[in-house]
């Protein structure tokens, strides 16, 4: 399944009422890879978290396919994320004491019963594909690159239509970052995922279909790759 994004009049405010982000119009095609760049504090991550319904004090319309995520309650937003969104973070955010398999298949712990088995199967396939041989080893002993690959497997475990990544290469050395970029973009393309990544990494941005820029909480005129 693929989902197009239609975003209209999105305003995100801080708890004190200050406007953090104001995007009038943004459309992303299903299966499109979009990079978000911009100076620090411009609102890139805010946009990313808003897209999956995590950012509080958001108004406007964020429509994934037929679903306006902002009109959903908290429980339904969580369900939407569970079924449609995979997220990758800058510093991996793994449970150090769990194995690669345990981390990547985390969603099986809280997912619907019928989804548990497919999640595990998917994770094993994904970890193998990403070159993680010893899946039953604690991630404690993994390198940064290996950890981020486990995080990718976790993001793709539930076969989501959307992958969101927040500075996925920022904690990696160049070599690991390069491998991750090809892994991630290839996988997103192969599996026809809508892939949105916040990044300063030009190599990553180069591999995206389109790059949007955010400055002071607003979209700058597009300077896409296509």
């Amino acid at each position, binding site marked *: 399944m693929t989902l197009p994004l239609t975003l209209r009049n999105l305003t995100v405010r801080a708890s004190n009422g200050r406007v953090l982000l104001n995007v009038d119009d943004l459309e992303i095609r299903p299966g499109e890879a979009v990079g978000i760049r911009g100076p620090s504090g411009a609102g890139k*991550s805010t946009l990313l*978290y808003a897209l*999956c319904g*995590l*950012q*509080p004090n958001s108004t406007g319309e964020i429509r994934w396919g037929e679903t306006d995520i902002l009109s959903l309650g*908290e*429980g339904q937003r*969580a*369900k*939407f*994320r*569970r*079924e449609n*969104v995979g*997220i990758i*973070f800058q*510093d991996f*955010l793994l*449970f*150090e*004491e*769990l194995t690669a398999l*345990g981390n990547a298949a*985390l*969603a*099986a*712990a*809280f997912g619907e*019963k019928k989804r548990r088995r497919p999640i595990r199967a998917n994770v094993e396939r994904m970890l193998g594909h990403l070159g993680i041989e010893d899946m039953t080893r604690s991630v404690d002993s993994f390198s940064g690159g290996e950890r981020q690959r486990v995080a990718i497997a*976790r993001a793709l475990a539930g076969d989501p239509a959307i992958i969101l990544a927040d500075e996925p290469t920022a904690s990696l050395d160049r070599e690991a970052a390069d491998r991750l970029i090809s892994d991630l973009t290839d996988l997103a393309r192969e599996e026809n995922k809508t892939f949105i990544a916040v990044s300063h990494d030009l190599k990553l941005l180069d591999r995206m279909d389109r790059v949007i820029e955010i400055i002071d909480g607003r979209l700058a005129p597009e300077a896409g790759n296509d």
Partner: protein
Amino acid sequence: MIEGLTDYWQSLPVLTQDLLRLALLLLPAIVTGLAVVSGYRPFSLVGALLWRFRWTNVMFVLLIGVSVGIGVGLLAQERGLRRGTAKAAEKFDLIVAAPGSEITMLFAAVYLQPSDVPLLGGGIYHEIATNKRVSLAAPIAFGDSYAGAPIVGTTPQFIQHLTGDLAEGRLFAASHEAIAGSKVDLPLGTTYTPDHGIGDAVEENAHEGHESTIVGRMKPTGSPWDKAILVPVEAVWEVHGLANGHTPERIDQIGPPFDPDYFPGTPAVLVRAEALWENYALRSEFTRSDTMAFFPGAVLSRLHGLMGDIRQIMSMMAVITQVLVTAGVLTGLVVLTRLFARRLALLRALGAPRRFVFSVVWSYAATLILSGSLLGLAVGWVSVKIISDIVSARTDILVTASLGWPEFHLLAGFVSLTILLALLPAALILRRPVVTDLRG
């Protein structure tokens, strides 16, 4: 309906009642647990978090364990002490003494705590000894000591009543012979001269020339009598320069009958009848202006009644202390959850339902509480043994305390209460802003 239930409850065997009570007390914890984790599998995650903060968790578990252990240990100890003091008094059916304080006399005659008490004369003793319902009337005369061991004058019949056959040696047959209690550190054949008085008030050499020899040793009684030296009551009178209870013609006689005219007096008389109702009849008969008759068991039970009130307060205090410690631990947990707030926020970002995150935090706290309670049982079990030994050594009353149903019930109540309390930090964690936590 309620009456029917009460009747049914009372018809159940005691063990079943105890088991059911335990189950009922644990029920809130079990129901909460099932309700919180049903449908999810939070345990590997909880295990991971517990391991990550293992030293902090060990500290939390130790805190709960020690507070629970001390609480249940003290309660078990109080019960053990009650049983021990009762057991020590079991052989003392009815005490007849001069009017005064029953408690003072109980402590003096049964627990051998020194006291100045008025004496009963020969006439009254004779009246008691010849009463048709009395099967044993033994004078108990105290006041002297040797090497810290109280010397008690009595009759061979009383010793037989107290311990049956001797552990070694034979009963005294002359006024210069003595029987040692099981814990008196004097071998058979030891000759000693008694001191006048007991403890700090002792006057050494006051009874110079009145030597006695240990000729037998009693079996253990689990009472202060184990540390006493028992001599013929005649010997006590003789060393004080008094008549020895017998006419000059029968001066070498040991034990009853005593002649009222040659009976110098005794602080107390142990009286025993064959049937319980006869004891009550004797008590009624000898409760009068010149005598006081009481059952040590009844006096002790009143004291225990007082202790029962204290026990209730202690139970309450124990629970409050344990709950406070646990509340402290749970507060610590709230602080600790800040450390893994990012990971919990991650779960929510991945789409974990609120109830799953709630179940992770609650299971974490519940694991600490259950581990602490189990450790508390172990601490309680050990502390009870240690304190029992100390109390037994200090009081000479054999205290064999062990954890029992009341402690298990207390613990079950504690577990249920605190596991319900653990819902609080779990609820608090859900109030944290996800994005702020994700960004660390």
